[in-house]
């Protein structure tokens, strides 16, 4: 970067030596120059704004309430405010209702919260597991690596979606609810988070392991070991900071993948169960009726694509910004 400044304005640069930028400052500058990443950031902020502001205006119980009349109402139809329509009050279903007469607009708001929350928490589990397994396998090598690598290979041999479908076949039959952060949710939410988390750590553990294999041969690790630093400290103080960049990128992209995975499971009926909404299980209601219930897949579908697209752009920008080899 200093070269750029010198080339463009040599005299000024010579007069006042620019302050050297920290690594984080360089990364932020690079990120902001990545147009797609900036676009993705704003897109994601928009989605987050929609699902947070929306929940200030509507209660979740409104979205979970079924109606006796006004089922499968197209967008813009007048529907009753309460279940039986006793009060006589009506309101407009902005994005229509589903097969049980639930308001799709409100479900989109609360479903989005669940979908994104599932994405973030399951990735947290996957990243923790993948990082620890990768670090341990790479650092200790030998039989430890042997065992951990075999486990990774076994998990990788069965495509994640198929593994998840088998595992969730049992759990998705659970109709119980659970109280979480003051909300009543279907217990399947917790199962799905755990299942996705425990079945998507493998790619990251491979990345971390291969990074550690090359880093641990460097002199500063040898030096640390020579002065008697414990393995635990070497791993977490010397190795981990040096593999953070690929972990951050993989974690970001992983949130998008997890959101899509949840959508697959819920769409096939093995995911989060009603009344709790997710973008995926709203779309499930459109199966077999894509023409006369188009609002049940067009709107949640667009939300999924927008969110995942934004996350992918951000991940792409982070990859460029955090890559120490990319010099501009």
């Amino acid at each position: 970067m200093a070269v750029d400044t010198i080339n463009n304005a040599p005299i000024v640069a010579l007069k006042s030596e620019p302050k050297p930028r920290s690594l984080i400052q360089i990364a932020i500058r690079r990120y902001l120059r990545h147009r797609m990443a900036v676009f993705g950031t704003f897109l994601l902020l928009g989605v987050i704004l929609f699902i947070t502001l929306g929940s200030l205006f509507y209660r979740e119980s409104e979205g979970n309430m079924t109606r006796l009349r006004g089922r499968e109402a197209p967008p813009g139809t007048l529907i009753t405010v309460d279940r039986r329509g006793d009060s006589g009050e009506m309101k407009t279903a902005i994005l229509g209702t589903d097969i049980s007469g639930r308001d799709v607009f409100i479900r989109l708001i609360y479903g989005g919260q669940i979908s994104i929350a599932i994405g973030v928490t399951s990735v947290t589990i996957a990243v923790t597991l993948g990082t620890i397994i990768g670090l341990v396998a790479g650092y200790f090598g030998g039989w430890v690596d042997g065992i951990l690598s075999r486990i990774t290979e076994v998990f990788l041999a069965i495509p994640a979606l198929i593994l998840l479908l088998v595992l969730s076949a049992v759990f998705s039959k659970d109709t119980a609810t659970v109280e979480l952060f003051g909300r009543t949710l279907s217990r399947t939410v917790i199962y799905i988070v755990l299942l996705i988390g425990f079945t998507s750590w493998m790619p990251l553990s491979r990345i971390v392991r291969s990074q550690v294999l090359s880093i641990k041969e460097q002199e500063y690790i040898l030096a640390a070991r020579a002065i008697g630093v414990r393995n635990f400290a070497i791993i977490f103080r010397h190795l981990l900071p040096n593999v953070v960049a690929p972990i951050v990128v993989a974690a970001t992209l992983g949130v998008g993948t997890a959101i899509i995975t949840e959508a697959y499971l819920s769409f096939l009926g093995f995911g989060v169960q009603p009344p709790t909404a997710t973008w995926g299980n709203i779309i499930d209601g459109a199966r077999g009726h894509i023409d006369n219930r188009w609002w049940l897949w067009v709107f949640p579908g667009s939300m999924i694509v927008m969110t995942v697209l934004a996350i992918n752009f951000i991940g792409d920008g982070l990859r460029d910004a955090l890559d120490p080899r990319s010099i501009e």
Partner: protein
Amino acid sequence: MTQYIIRRVMQAIPLLFLISVFVFFLIRQAGDPFAGRILEAGTSAEDLSRQRRAAGLTDPVWLQFIHWYLGDDWYQRDLSGDGEPDTFGRRQGILRGDLGVSVQRNEPVVKTIRRFLPWTLLLGATALTTTIVFGVAIGMLASLRPYSIFDNIVTTLSFVTFSTPIFLIALLSVFIFSVKFREWGLPYLPTGGTSDWRAGGATFGDVAQRLILPTVSLAAIQIAAYSRFIRASMLDVLNSDYIRTAHAKGLKRRRVVMLHAFKNASFPLITLVALDIPVFLSGAVVTETIFSWPGMGKLFIDSLNQLDPPILLAFTLFVALTVVTMQLIADIVYAWVDPRVRYT
């Protein structure tokens, strides 16, 4: 080379065994296939317990595993309920090619699979061919004029496609090409199954027409991935010295691109194709379910809904076997075409 191949195959065998153990316990936890039977009319509790004993579900877990592997035709069970073993089992075990008998369909799993597998192979092969043809063509075109309007459109489109679940692509393509085209009076594509059930047998045209939309859904995301891959790989090669030399000595651009550049840029494609087989398989699960395509993916979802462990076991094992074999082939082919790979 031969030694390398032998060693890789030998390494795959214990891995496959580990996978089979994992798969066995994975399917076991899916539940008791006879749990729903008690509700059926004419089934007494005694019948049920007899059926469960005959299926070997009352045996200890380790014994069930051995029976799954080696069969139980050497093992006597007590079916009459008098406390003395009296009847030999009939299974031969997976090592002898017997995948058991489907609980819900009442036929050998091998027979079921033989009926469903060809449709998946047909869909998979069509989708794979489509992916390679379009992925390579789009990627090459984009790489010849990087950052042109065409390249930028392709980049944006592939980003959007990456971010779209297969089922949305399927729903969208059905909505446009089947529902809307019909509304607009255009020639539209039929969906669902492999042929019109009213017409009796499936003709070639029937199947071909109904193959188009599932293929599009299955291939779209992969085309995006492959075109990105080919573009990057081509850009790498096009900037190398030997391409500059080829241009300098006056070769036609077409010849340089097609012969010199593409040949080298397409090597990694071999590994990509082999490693992508699992992606096609899990994609098939979703696509076949949406389009009622009678392949392995639909069989899997149906068996999951009805809880049919022998079929689930066979399917999962089949998938894992395919994945491991393809990884093996990818490694070997790569070592074979690229002499720089060390045989270690």
